[in-house]
């Protein structure tokens, strides 16, 4: 038991990323409001950013830049995960933009942004057609 706890304590950034990820997934799955689902998606993506940034961390690391007279032994943070997350943030923003644009159109089409009401309207349509 103590082993597990100390393991978790030394890897606390994983615990946080997994908690954040589960919060995001819960919001996406359990919330009926379309905007809240998008917020959940954003939390989920942020969890991934946190994970990436934390694996690039080095104890006592500095910025990964060269300067005049920089000693060979100075540790530096791994910049690659940061760069990758720059791309992922852009992707996340564009997904949010498309999602919100769709929600505006859904609001115009259905008059609601509650999932349950939309499904009920769709079902009524389907019954009307057959």
């Amino acid at each position, binding site marked *: 038991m103590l082993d597990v706890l100390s393991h978790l304590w030394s890897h606390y950034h994983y615990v946080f990323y997994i908690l954040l990820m589960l919060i995001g*997934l819960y919001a996406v799955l359990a919330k009926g409001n379309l905007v809240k689902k998008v917020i959940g998606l954003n939390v989920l993506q942020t969890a*991934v950013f946190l994970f990436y940034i934390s694996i690039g961390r080095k104890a006592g690391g500095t910025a990964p830049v060269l300067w005049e007279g920089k000693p060979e032994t100075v540790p530096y943070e791994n910049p*690659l995960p940061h760069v990758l997350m720059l791309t992922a943030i852009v992707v996340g923003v564009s997904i949010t933009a498309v999602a919100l644009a769709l*929600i505006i159109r859904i609001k115009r089409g259905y008059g609601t942004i509650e999932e349950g009401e939309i499904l009920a309207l*769709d079902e009524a349509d389907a019954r009307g057609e057959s």
Partner: protein
Amino acid sequence: MVAHLPVLTIMIPLFAGLFMPLLGRLNRAIVWPLAVGALGFATFGSIHMLVDVATTGEAIHYSFGGWALPTGIGYRVDLLNGMVLAMIAGAGLLTSIWMLRPAQKEIPDEGRTSYYAVFLLCCAGFLGITITADIFNLYVFLEIASITSYVLIAMGGRRQALYAGYSYLIVGSIGATFILLGIGHLYMRTGSLGMADILSQFQADTSLYTLSDVRTAFAFFTVGLAIKMALFPLHGWQPSAYTYAPSPSSLFIASTSTKVSAYAFYRICFGVFGLAFLTDGLPEIRQIVLVMSSAAIVLGPLIAIRQGDLKRLLAYSSVGQIGYIMLGVVLLNVDGLTGGIIHFWNHAAAKGSLFCVAGALVFRTGSSRVSDLAGMGRRAPWTSAVLTVAGCSMVGVPMTAGFLSKWYLAAGALEADYVFVVPVLIASSVFTAIYVWRVLQLVWFAPKDVEPAVTSEVPWSMRIPALALGAACLVFGLTPWSVDLARSAAVALGVGS
């Protein structure tokens, strides 16, 4: 120029898509020729590269800015992704020709230029996923293709299309995030993003396979890609998306999108983790994928039988068809993989033709009810002939393309001692035969007093792509070269015979 074909094949559709809104503002007439031209070039490029790889027997490598792999980002074309590239570009070209008239009818005037632009970006995204040799680059292209797909689906005229696009966006983004996590876990262990580099690290030290983060990475990839390829039981987003999307979107997305994700799974298995991961590292994964794909193969067509909407029927049949492709991975012998790889082409041809017919039905009647097909054979013989050939290919009638896929998969299953796969394939063929027969009976043998809802043949711009795809079903079935290509691709993946 030939040396730069790998990059030009991606960049020309990409930049044509980016500049299209600008050019379309100057002159609307340029939009359609530009789309056809850009995808025509991509088709030329990918077929040229495929022929090149097939004749020399060596993969084409391309690295950006002179940075050698694994430091830089690179493209790599071998037989497997050469075939997939040709499939995407070919389907894109035929769709862009086909969509001239349906787009005028289904997409509002002010949105049409943007529609073409998004369509080209989507093609570029799929081509990029296929050609890249860098695993993070794969994610970026995956997101380009996904975001554009959400838009292509949501542009259908009815409000259901908006909700279908939104649902796909939510589920698809979760899938893509899982893939991103998988990449992160792999990077954490190997410190590399180049596919070949990661593979060589695994091959040098197979004890890496037992580490939990490597296994977690594979689990994230499997679930993420299974969502993207609509593998049963993660196919929930797919039927509504195919049904309510505008016809050109359903045609292109149905014939390529899920298969590109299936290809990504092939690449992750054989090009990143390596064959040994499936045989020794985590053999349970084979059972899991086997169960999922067998369930898909039987249940997809079974659910399709009950559908009253032609596009929804075809969507459920696609759920089954992706199972065939995934079956190839788990069989892990040359015959089984040949069947899986050849099914990329065979299914693209058959499903492409069927969605051309569904699009023709929407074009003439405004809806896609199966009952409206009654008597179509009398008024639109060409379209009905395409429907017949493609339907036979879906069932797996000998001399059509679908027969060869099933034949090789069955042979591979027997060789791998998965005997129960054979009755699964037969049951699937029977269910497929039921819904295909139901459709064909309406088309050809409707009572004489029924007035056909499809009053006349569709314009030539729609008929030619449909006929080309229908002919492909026969050509792949009657000539051996496509099977030979798939077999060489399977051998190149390194499985034992």
